[in-house]
């Protein structure tokens, strides 16, 4: 069962919530929708599910036009942020409810419920009530209910956002396992780039209702088609520097420039935005083509094993993501090195002009 959205738009009260979105998801795929809050992730998922009708465009499942078909008739399940369970039913009954609705027989229900509960590690809580369980267990119950009916399309709307950090890591892992063997399409919405990277599969970047980029997660991360894509998909945010490509060098302002290398020569003479990832800037020069930047330390944020260094000079603000602990006092002078072969180049319109070559 493949899912296809063709030029789907949704307008509510004169406001464009989804702007000409076209997407295609393969059966058995795990797809992440990433974007800021109010970027249209929930609206898009509701259109996929059939909870809302698009103002324009079509929704196709396995080639058949299901645009007008209500959600009840489609084989879809959804998991929400707020652990939604039937409070008066036991966990067993909660998970069994979609099967009972479909009219399955008692033995079948018993078997499937136990199987799904085991997959989600809640088989010990089947006769408890959702409100007696912890947040993580409630969300697992909601997920079990979504998975038990083997829907063609399973949608997750930021399901882990109300759980604590470690629990989120655990559940993310389990989710990937759960979907590995299935033919259903999973669509997962999140605001966190790291979560999208951890889940893998494909990633679709949304901004203000538009699809900015869609493709395998790794691809979208390493080759952002637009500056916006790079900004949204990176935590800490990617560093962007305004620069100009001239005859044989790139200059950032009167003092900082470096000679054009082979790849950059292909670019025309114009103003560009150069992007460098925080983890690529170093404290020592490691390559011949490293660009030296002097500045002062604004702040050193140290976690146990890594340091986020905020450096500033009169022209730029940079964030560095360093391995290990590097303690710098505020306002201390520092020199950092940008490997120019790792620069992303975006043209004036924000489109990717060039991405750094990747080595395996």
């Amino acid at each position: 069962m493949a899912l296809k959205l063709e030029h789907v738009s949704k307008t509510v009260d004169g406001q464009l919530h989804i702007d000409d979105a076209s997407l295609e998801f393969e059966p058995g795929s795990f797809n992440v929708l990433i974007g800021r809050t109010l970027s249209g992730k929930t609206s898009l998922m509701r259109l996929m599910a059939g909870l809302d009708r698009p103002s324009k465009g079509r929704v196709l499942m396995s080639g058949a036009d299901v645009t007008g078909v209500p959600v009840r008739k489609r084989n879809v399940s959804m998991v929400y942020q707020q652990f939604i369970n039937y409070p008066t039913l036991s966990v067993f009954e909660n998970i069994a409810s979609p099967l009972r609705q479909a009219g399955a027989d008692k033995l079948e229900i018993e078997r499937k419920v136990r199987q799904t509960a085991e997959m989600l590690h809640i088989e010990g809580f089947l006769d408890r009530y959702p409100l007696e369980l912890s947040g993580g267990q409630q969300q697992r119950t909601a997920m079990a209910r979504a998975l038990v009916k083997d829907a063609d399309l399973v949608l997750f709307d930021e399901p882990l956002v109300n759980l604590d950090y470690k629990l989120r890591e655990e559940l993310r892992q389990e989710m990937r396992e759960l979907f590995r063997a299935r033919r259903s399409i999973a669509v997962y919405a999140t605001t966190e780039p790291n979560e999208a990277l951890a889940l893998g599969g494909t990633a679709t970047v949304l901004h203000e209702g538009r699809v900015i980029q869609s493709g395998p997660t790794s691809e979208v991360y390493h080759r952002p088609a637009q500056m916006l894509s790079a900004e949204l998909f990176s935590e800490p945010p990617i560093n962007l520097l305004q620069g100009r490509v001239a005859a044989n060098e790139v200059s950032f302002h009167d003092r900082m420039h470096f000679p054009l290398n082979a790849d950059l020569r292909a670019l025309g003479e114009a103003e560009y935005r150069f992007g460098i990832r925080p983890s690529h800037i170093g404290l020592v020069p490691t390559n011949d083509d490293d660009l030296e930047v002097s500045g002062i330390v604004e702040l050193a944020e140290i976690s146990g094993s890594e340091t986020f260094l905020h450096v500033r000079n009169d022209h730029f603000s940079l964030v560095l993501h360093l391995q290990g602990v590097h303690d710098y006092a505020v306002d201390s002078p520092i020199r950092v090195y940008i490997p120019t072969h790792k620069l992303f180049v975006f043209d004036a319109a924000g489109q990717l002009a060039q991405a750094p070559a990747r080595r395996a």
Partner: protein
Amino acid sequence: MTKVHDNRAWWLVLPVFLLVAFSAVLPMMTVVNYSVQDIFDASTRVFVGADWYRQILHDPRLHDSLLRQFIFSGCVLLIEIPLGIAVALTMPTRGRWASLCLIVMAIPLLIPWNVVGTIWQIFGRADIGLLGYSLRELGVDYNYASNTGDAWVTVLVMDVWHWTSLVALLCYSGLRAIPDAYYQAARIDRASSWAVFRYIQLPKLKSVLLIAVMLRFMDSFMIYTEPFVLTGGGPGNATTFLSQTLTKMAVGQFDLGPAAAFSLIYFLIILLVSWLFYTAMTHADQK
């Protein structure tokens, strides 16, 4: 959310639709019909166009009634809204006293309206009423049947007694919805109780108050039973409000034409003032 339509649902709605049509829409249309005709008796009627409307709008009885009605509704709102809020603020939120309080507050709302009128009618009498008797013993000259001022005060007090609970209960539920964190933050900021009321409670009560004001306005504007039972509209016309004037005209004098026109105008006045209230209160928000 645009639902995809399932046409079978219309069949379920049909019985209700017919009932509403029968009991409300058709009579309404009849009233419109009557308002443009002069009816002498069941079979003699003449089309008079907008004559009745013109007559009504110049009728001094109507003007007086309308004025009295506005004064009454105005007083009702001015007293009941602040009083209701004050009561809601003092009602306990936890424990068994909370449930007891809610029950006590609900009682006046459950009494049939003509019984309310009767209670106060007897209560205020100087010979057998507790209030009337006590006031007479204290030397106060109180007679709602002959003194206009006394009649007004009694009608107002009766309405306040009857309906303030509604405002109080609405505000109570509104207050319960305010998260604790706001009160804690206010304590930490060393805010006085007045500041807490003005900056936290009142703003959060806005939507509930809108409902309370609209309900109280509409109900008080249409009031009939209680003042009718209490004072009969007297002394003279002192407490004759719009609805009673209308009824006298329609039923008493059988002037169906003018009465019909009057009721439509009545309806439009309520609609207009409600709309003004609503717009004023929701726009104050969007400044």
